[in-house]
């Protein structure tokens, strides 16, 4: 905004000239007379063109900086949901995932394109998975997660509030569908150490999930959703569950699985031993494994850079167009030519 060019008008000066009344001043009086000193900005060509130019000068460098940050992130994305099905079962993926007798073991080989500095974040990514579905997001009970069975009101967990007359802890669709693929990483002959602690938000572990709440009656019903939980570990330590229960707003999301706390060199080959347990086949979802470093901006995301550059160039162009318009067609303000009441006014 170009407030700087505003002229500060103090009309209040001439008001006390009314005879027969005590001269009145003060902000309240000015307010009552609608005469508060006001700054009236004007959209002069200079300020507008300068504003756009300035925005261009801010956004183009910003775009370059953010693009650089995004490019500094090394990311390995591997889609494994198809590849992990044996060739002969690919025509019937549902059978593969629902039949417990078929081994879900699978190995993937990832080549590190560039050297990656620790910590390297391990995410699993699900596509076409609607964690934001209305039935799904609501199907949880925060009180139960924190206080356990003390509260028996699990109605918000519909349609999975109880199983066989006993309440479920943790109840609800979200917990029930917890992701249960597991990954093991090794590089060359040595196993890569994966830190699976502190992957959930600290605030969640401390204040949202109870330290003395243990899973109960979980995945005992006829319908088995996702993974099972260790009934002897309190919820506050079930970090995979906590991560999972931070529902994603988009149908395509990544969730933190763990951290590799050693550097990886370029052209290293990482062997991933995974258990392909989770059913993303029935709805055509994709499962990906993501290894990524991070920058000050977070993970790899070119959007900031591209958007900034786009807005920056747009502002630049606008300012150039206005400049040309102004040079070619200067308009003195308040000109009589434009004040004739006979001219049809085009703007509304």
């Amino acid at each position, binding site marked *: 905004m170009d407030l700087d060019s505003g002229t500060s008008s103090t009309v209040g000066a001439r*008001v006390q000239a009314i*005879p027969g009344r005590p001269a009145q001043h003060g902000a309240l009086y000015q307010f009552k*007379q609608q005469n508060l000193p006001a700054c009236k900005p004007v959209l002069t060509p200079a300020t507008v063109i300068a504003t756009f130019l300035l925005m261009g000068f801010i956004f183009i460098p910003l775009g370059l900086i953010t693009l650089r940050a995004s490019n500094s992130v090394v990311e390995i994305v591997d889609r494994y949901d198809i590849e992990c099905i044996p060739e002969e079962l690919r025509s019937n993926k549902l059978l593969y995932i629902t039949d417990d007798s078929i081994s879900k073991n699978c190995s993937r080989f990832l080549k590190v394109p560039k050297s990656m500095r620790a910590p390297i974040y391990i995410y699993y990514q699900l596509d076409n998975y609607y964690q*934001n579905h209305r039935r799904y997001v609501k199907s949880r009970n925060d009180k139960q997660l924190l206080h356990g069975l003390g509260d028996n009101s699990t109605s918000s967990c519909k349609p999975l509030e109880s199983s066989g007359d006993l309440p479920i802890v943790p109840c609800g669709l979200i917990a029930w569908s917890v992701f249960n693929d597991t990954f093991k990483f090794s590089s060359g002959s040595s196993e890569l150490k994966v830190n699976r602690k502190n992957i959930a938000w600290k605030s969640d572990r401390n204040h949202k999930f109870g330290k003395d709440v243990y899973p109960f009656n979980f995945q005992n019903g006829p319908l088995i959703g996702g993974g099972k939980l260790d009934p002897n570990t309190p919820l506050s330590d079930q970090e995979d569950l906590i991560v999972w229960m931070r529902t994603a707003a988009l149908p395509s999301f990544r969730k933190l699985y763990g951290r590799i706390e050693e550097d990886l060199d370029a052209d290293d080959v990482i062997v991933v031993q995974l258990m392909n347990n989770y059913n993303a086949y029935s709805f055509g979802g994709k499962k990906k494994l993501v290894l990524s470093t991070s920058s000050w*901006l977070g*993970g790899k995301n070119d959007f*900031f850079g591209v*958007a900034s550059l786009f807005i920056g160039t747009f502002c630049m162009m606008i300012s150039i167009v206005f400049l040309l318009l102004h040079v070619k067609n200067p308009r003195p303000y*308040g000109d009589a030519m434009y004040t004739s*009441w006979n001219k049809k006014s085009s703007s509304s």
Partner: protein
Amino acid sequence: MSRGIPEPKLTAMDAMIDKLTGAIFVFQIVVVMVLGIAGNVWKDTEAKKQWYVLYPDKGPWYELLIIPLRFELLCSIMIPISIKVSLDLVKGLYAKFIDWDHRMVDLETSTPSNATNTAISEDLGQVEYILTDKTGTLTENKMIFRRCCISGIFYGNENGDALKDVELLHAVSSGSPDAVQFLTIMAICNTVIPTQSKTGDILYKAQSQDEDALVQAAAHLHMVFFNKSGNILEVKFNSSILQYEVLETLEFTSDRKRMSLVLRDCQNGKILLLSKGADEAILPYARTGQQTRNFIEAVEQYAHLGLRTLCLAWRELREDEYQEWSLMFKEANSTLVDREWRVAEVCQRIEHNLEVLGVTAIEDRLQDGVPETIETLRKAGINFWMLTGDKQNTAIQIALSCNFISPEPKGQLLSIDGKTEDEVRRSLERVLLTMRITTSEPKDVAFVIDGWALDFALNHYRKAFTELAILSRTAICCRVTPSQKAQLVQILKSCDYRTLAIGDGGNDVRMIQQADIGVGISGREGLQAARAADYSIGKFRFLKRLILVHGRYSYNRTAFLSQYSFYKSLLICFIQIFFSFISGVSGTSLFNSVSLMAYNVFYTSVPVLVSVLDKDLSEETVIQHPQILFYCQAGRLLNPSTFAGWFGRSLFHAVVVFLISIHAYAYDKSEMEEVSMVALSGCIWLQAFVVAMETNSFTILQHLAIWGNLAGFYAINWIFSALPASGMYTIMFRLCRQPSYWISIFLMTAAGMSPILAIKYFRYTYRPSKINTLQQAERLGGPIVSLGTIEPQPRPLIEKDVSTLSITQPKNRNPVYEPLLSDSPNATRRSSGTPFDFFQSQSRSSLPNYSRNCKDN
């Protein structure tokens, strides 16, 4: 005067807002239906496959309704409920500003202006017709006896004050019987009550200012009416005391236009009838054989000077005549049905055969600033009608002296009159024809009509009269009754014009209540009008400020506030709708309920409330360029097309906020609460800038509200983020630490505001509206050029040749003249046999100025 039951008034703006709300409601229903169907389809095709949602295979039929109802719940915020509250608040403030305005305080009586009706300030800015009373409204209603004519002798013509006229003093002192009788009538033929103050002065309590003036003048001429005890009136004339016993009082009504007194002269026992009244109510009943030509001339002469005339007459009654009549009068007075009419009829029986004594002329001075006010308001495109109970000539004189109508070469005054229905019809047709022809000329054409003709016109030729009303910018209606005043208002209202009626007396109450806006002058005729009115002001000249300053600002502010309210509600609703496309069309709300509530109630309504302080142009500029009011009258700032602009803006902003937040917070950051807060922050920032962009003048309060609100948003969310129990625990702290949050906000603001700034600048500079031009001139100190004519568009000058028609030399400077249209070959050809060609005329009248079309026909 019967007041009737006033209807609650609704402003044109409220009607428009209601219409827009209706449109939004329809839009909402459509969105809900489309999304509901899409949701059900998606549910059947996709969601059934998604095992984690666990849809039951078969549900009851009403499950089909769940998704549409969910969307209805989501979209219910599309119609801003807060608009009603905000509007009521700001309207209350508009009214307070009127009450507080010290420039609208009548310093003589120190009566401030008062807005009784706090809901219709915007209408003031959209007034198209002002119907004004004359006496007490345009004039001061301070009656001073100036001249008189007694038995054909004019007094007061030389020095303009009959009280100082030596000849009159001489006539009185010499005891000329006519003069004495004249004075007696002046002194006692009234309903004045004299009271004696402690100092011995006599004070008069009069219902009408005219009577007061007459009694005062009589007292000045040594005929002192000093006591009234019961039915006995005591008058002191040159030290002799005369006593009269009042037998009957025949009261004044606006239909009868005269009052009489039947009294017994206690000196000689004679029964006398004393009458005073309007000339047409007295002169026709003069005794056969009496020459009334003198009096007619006197009345005309006085009327030319803008003086109010009353004729005084008397006669002696025989005892038996009185007795007989008295019985009838009593009977009539005690009837239950049609009493007023019966009494009038009985009065008629005795009020004849009068000996006319003379004519009094009372001056009523124009109020200060009336001509200027009328001129300014006429420049603002407001049409004036004067409705008065006075004589035609008096009215025309007053009209001329206060810029109401222009004198000869510039203006033209057409008269509609006639004694019979047929004459009135022909007169009306002729005036209408002239009017149609002359609308294409830049000429002030006005018509004048009296109550008698108006009666015919209203009852039998309503359509023609309505057309006339639309065509003419100025009209003078004389001798009209209160109910006719109200009917005239009704006619203009039926053509969808915004009417303002201003008056001061009880006879204006019905008109004031009938009009869209009633303004009462709290003047000498009591507070009856001021009480019934929506606004009461001390002087007519405050009307200028009331309309141009308060009305215009109120309109502008409400236009912004209401459209902004729709904008912000649509903005958040569009985001919800977009979100539903990426949440399986299931009706998930992106925002939590606390945020949604706070968004409408707090975050977005506080900044906009201070727009009540916004002034697009300074008061001085508006007063100098009253033409700018046209933007309000034509509803340029709030109409479906400006609303479409705001609709588009909210759609655009929703797209910007939504796309940026889902792309910036994708993948590992796509946590529901975080994305929702990013989007909400984007909305808050954008709306702050939108308010800032649309604000024309920033006072400290605006800065405080706009930027303080932004700070308040963060403060509130930090508080919520600090509560472990709330759903957004730690969210805002986390976000504020992330550079990507601030970059996202920055991107949203820039992407959302830069096109708007660009468009605004382009319009402001290269397609400026008149408001913009004046803003530029005002703020850059450039030359404020005077603006041309009132018409927003040139009227097509089709029939220039007819201008010759109107130039007919008036005889002896009578402003009332009628061009002899029927003699003109041009006119006969044009009329082509159908004098009431409404279809054609309507299209013609709507051509030059789009607001001037009658939606009634």
